[in-house]
């Protein structure tokens, strides 16, 4: 591999030395996460940590929407993705970690502290919340994304130290009424818990569109460290792949919002107390709990 030759056509836009210092964790290497990882390698990100659930292997039904193909059928996605990425940037250092981020919080925290960026590419709320908590605690930038039902569009958010966290944004989006009720994801039918979830899968290009925006936000964040001009104003991007009444006025429409940090957020808010006051109060609560409990 000739590194100078590899980055010859992009050097004027993005110096490979800048990207080389970056360490990105990509959590979830499904259809979206795999594309973010692939783009990161093409940016020249020095170290990419691929995290996926144990025993998460490429199945045939994944292939139509994934960067991996039939030659990797049955292989763990993380390992197969590493080989795929090295094929386009052999100089990239890639770590593959198989873990459940919800169950192994301490390990996740250790990994995140090593990173310059964390990309949350999972599709379930408990995992998103855990990743958010650990990124906020470590003060590491978190970029998250989600594809809306049927791939009609999606969202990309960026959590920076001191700004609104994912939990602030989720609460704002869910409970502010900003979204039209008719467009919001439907809740489960509690009277029919065995019923089929009313959601539709997305096409490959729908997912890729959102994943590329996620990678772009990562790129802008990386460049922002070396450029004082603001990369983009806001912390939340809405992108419509298709027209949706009340949400996306036309195909390929986009909007950027600045979702405010909630000072009362239980995850990132200060709570109006100093650390010493918090520790003292917590000790007092725990002492009383133990005394009265057993």
């Amino acid at each position, binding site marked *: 591999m000739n590194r100078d030759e590899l980055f010859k056509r992009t050097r004027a836009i993005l110096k490979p030395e800048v990207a080389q210092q970056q360490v990105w964790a990509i959590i979830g290497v499904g259809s979206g996460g795999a594309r973010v990882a692939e783009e990161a390698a093409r940016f020249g990100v020095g170290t990419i940590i691929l995290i996926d659930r144990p025993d998460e292997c490429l199945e045939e039904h994944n292939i139509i929407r994934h960067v991996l193909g039939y030659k990797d059928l049955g292989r763990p996605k993380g390992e197969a993705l590493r080989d795929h990425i090295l094929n386009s940037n052999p100089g990239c250092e890639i770590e593959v970690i198989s873990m459940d981020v919800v169950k192994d919080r301490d390990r996740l925290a250790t990994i995140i502290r090593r990173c310059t960026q964390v990309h949350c590419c999972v599709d379930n709320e408990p995992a998103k*919340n855990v990743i958010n*908590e650990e990124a906020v605690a470590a003060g590491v930038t978190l970029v998250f994304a989600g594809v809306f039902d049927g791939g009609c569009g999606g969202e990309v958010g960026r959590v920076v130290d001191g700004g609104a966290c994912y939990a602030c944004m989720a*609460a704002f989006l869910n409970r502010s009424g900003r979204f039209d009720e008719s467009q919001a994801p439907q*809740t*489960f039918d509690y009277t029919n818990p065995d019923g089929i979830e009313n959601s539709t899968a997305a096409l490959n290009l729908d997912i890729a569109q959102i994943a590329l925006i996620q990678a772009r936000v990562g790129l802008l964040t990386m460049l922002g460290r070396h450029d004082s001009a603001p990369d983009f104003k806001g912390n939340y991007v809405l992108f419509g792949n298709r027209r949706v009444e009340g949400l996306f006025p036309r195909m390929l429409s986009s909007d950027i919002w600045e979702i405010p940090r909630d000072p009362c957020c239980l995850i990132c808010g200060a709570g109006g107390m100093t650390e010493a006051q918090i*520790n003292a109060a917590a000790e007092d609560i*725990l002492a009383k709990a133990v005394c009265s409990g057993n």
Partner: protein
Amino acid sequence: MDSKRLVLEHAAMMERWSALEPRLRSDASGQLHWELTLHAEGGNRLPIKIVYPSGYPSDAPDIVALTSLPSGTPHLLPGNRICWRHPSESKRNRNIWCPSKDTAALCVGVAQRWFYAFLVWLSTSKWPVPDAVSN
């Protein structure tokens, strides 16, 4: 649960439900839970505990009835746990547990609602609400 969260949980519980005299307890493994008794008309009482799971606050608390309930009680999970959300619900929506806003204090209101529904069911054999929780 970190110290800040613990303090905020305690404050929220006491601010809203101190009349029920909730008590924070710790088991041998250090797992924390609240114990309190719900009241309803006719002198009916339901002692409950609200258990913080190891994944808290990303995972929602469990609400456990501390008294034996009749077999066939609707919306009751194994271990006497009150059903208040779909266990596999993992998509963001209006009713999902929200760790930035919700505390164990929310569960007391949820349990009270469940208790009223349970009492109606005892009298009529019909659960009066279509689900176990409503925000």
